């Protein structure tokens, strides 16, 4: 096993991944490529300052990959939250991914793991109930956030075809939710009034960060190829999430919602453009069967567990009141998880 290069290590998932690998005794094999050095209490890490948005990033990465003897690349430099600076996001996610892929292929890297999202399938009314990995991704989507991710996936797929000696894995993570997850969608939930679309109540998949971390570690030390949906067990309707966390839903007719959101986004009053409304309108639920059969990954937590852990942490009052009779079962469920973790 050669050394492991990590990009985007200061992201939420990247940092967890880094800590986990250090805990597991891989600390000496890690090389972090990022714009800022991650500060981690677990110990010192080998760090190189690389900005993927710079034109010569691929050459710089190639030299460093060769010098460090990199055999595995974990490319995690993606934005979960939409960026106001869409040009920069495009440079990092689409062009940056191209640079990392080119450097990895030229440096004869054996294994390339990339982070992606189940949101890349796009929320459409025509989606199958459980989307498989082979489903074509939306081409030239209106939503810049989505377009950049799809382009990064296209680059990965084309490199996988051109360089068969490099095994490329793309992990499409369901949206993360848990005690420490802070994203644009979790912040919407932090308000008293949660805007929803009038007459729509789509199903949601929410992945517990522990499961995301586990899947990423498995994929790093695996040699399978292709895209994998990393999903939790089960689904919950959006309305369940709103009512369990003690929020007041504010239904907005969809004829108004899109342009109102765009206006508010332009004014800087909301965090996400209107393209994201589709995700609370239509379903975007992925099928995790392939990850189970080929990666051996089965989520330890269900969507409901992830939701409960988030509510217990962020909205303890709502949690204790609405769940008086179920508290014990929740507690026992939590303890069973921690025992699993000890065993691991």
């Amino acid at each position: 096993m050669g050394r492991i290069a990590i990009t985007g290590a200061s992201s939420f998932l990247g940092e967890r991944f880094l800590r986990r690998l250090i805990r597991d005794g891989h600390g000496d094999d890690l090389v972090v490529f990022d714009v800022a050095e991650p500060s981690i209490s677990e110990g010192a890490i080998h760090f190189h300052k690389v900005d993927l948005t710079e034109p010569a990033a691929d050459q710089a990465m190639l030299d460093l990959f060769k010098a460090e003897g990199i055999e595995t690349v974990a490319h995690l430099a993606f934005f979960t939250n939409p960026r106001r600076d869409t040009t920069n996001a495009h440079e990092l996610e689409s062009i940056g991914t191209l640079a990392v892929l080119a450097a990895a292929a030229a440096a004869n890297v054996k294994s390339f793991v990339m982070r992606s999202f189940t949101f890349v399938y796009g929320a459409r009314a025509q989606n199958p109930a459980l989307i498989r990995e082979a489903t074509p991704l939306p081409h030239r989507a209106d939503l810049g956030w989505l377009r950049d991710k799809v382009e990064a996936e296209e680059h990965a797929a084309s490199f996988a075809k051109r360089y068969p000696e490099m095994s490329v894995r793309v992990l499409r993570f369901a949206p993360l939710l848990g005690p420490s997850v802070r994203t644009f969608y979790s912040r919407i939930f932090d308000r008293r009034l949660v805007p929803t679309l009038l007459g729509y109540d789509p199903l949601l998949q929410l992945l517990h960060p522990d499961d995301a971390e586990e899947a990423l570690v498995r994929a790093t030390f695996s040699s399978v190829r292709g895209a994998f949906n990393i999903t939790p067990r089960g689904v919950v309707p959006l309305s369940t999430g709103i009512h369990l966390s003690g929020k007041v839903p504010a239904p907005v007719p969809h004829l108004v919602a899109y342009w109102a959101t765009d206006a508010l986004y332009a004014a800087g009053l909301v965090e996400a453009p209107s393209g994201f409304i589709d995700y609370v309108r239509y379903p975007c639920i992925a099928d995790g069967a392939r990850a189970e059969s080929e990666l051996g990954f089965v989520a330890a937590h269900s969507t409901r567990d992830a939701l409960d852990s988030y509510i217990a942490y962020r909205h303890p009052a709502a949690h204790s009141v609405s769940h008086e009779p179920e508290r014990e079962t929740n507690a026992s469920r939590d303890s069973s998880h921690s025992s699993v973790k000890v065993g691991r």
Partner: protein
Amino acid sequence: MSARPRAKVLPFETKATRAARTRRARTVEAQEKEDLKRRVEDLEARLRAAEAGSRLPEDLVVEVTRLFAQGFKGVSWDRVARVLAAAHFSWHSEETDEFGYDAKFTETLRPFLEFMYAVWWRVETTGIERVPGSGPTLVVANHSGVLPWDGPMINVALRHEHPARRHCRMLALDMFALLPFLAPLLARSGAIRANPENAIRILERGELVGVFPEGVKGVGKPFKNRYKLARFGRGGFVRIALTTGATIIPTAVVGAEEIHPNLAQANFIGRPFGLPYFPLTPTFPWLGLLGTIPLPTKWSIDFGEPLDLSRFPKEAADDPILVNRLSEQVRHQIQTIIDGRLARRRSIWFG
């Protein structure tokens, strides 16, 4: 010397046919057991749902009382949120399956649908014994009525008249799954969006699936074309049945064509709202919401002879000529049942 050719004796029963007969007997027995088990499970589920249902409205009363206990001074965000949550969970469950089916919600709607079935349309169901008690089954029916009431009625028929009380997962047109209010309503009551992937997934679990191959051409057809079956899509339902080994049950619904007589179309009105068609009926839109009340015609639902596809291999699904022939055969069978019914029918209102 030549041996005289002996007469060929056809045995009354060979070893193979005897074995097949006992096997059949055994499968029938197993199926009956399966039916019984299903029924018990169903009753248990209903008991659970009823218990849960009777408990939750109390929560709602408690929360509303708490909200106004100190007059309007006591009204706060948290209290309002709790009342809303209690109201929501009094008729929705907290979790659904991955297609969005919600047992509690379905249970809430059940009395209303039973009323429509038994009192409003006085549905007469025949041939229910032709629907197998278990295993992948595809109920294929004609679609009509502007609003897709035929789906829930077939569901009620299977749930109430069939000994195995099978739950029918309806394949809903994309356009219904797109519309506000209707989309969550359909998903919660067990419908799934009509696409081959969903249908195959459900059938592979051995469930019963209902499909209207006419699609939007059927449900939105003008009144003058009533009971003339439209083209059956591109035979997708045959391909699904061939792939999963499901039994096809051709089913004819008579009476649904007249619930909203679609005299003229004004589709340009509906288009900006995402509606696929905008009917002008004697009551709609002139009477507003009252116009959406369906007329109380007399209905019949006839389940026809099952179409056995077991003689075809799985690969037959890729043969477009065969698929189209089988699809036409089913369409013809349904049309024949409908024509027979119509010939016997004396009145739209009394059958």
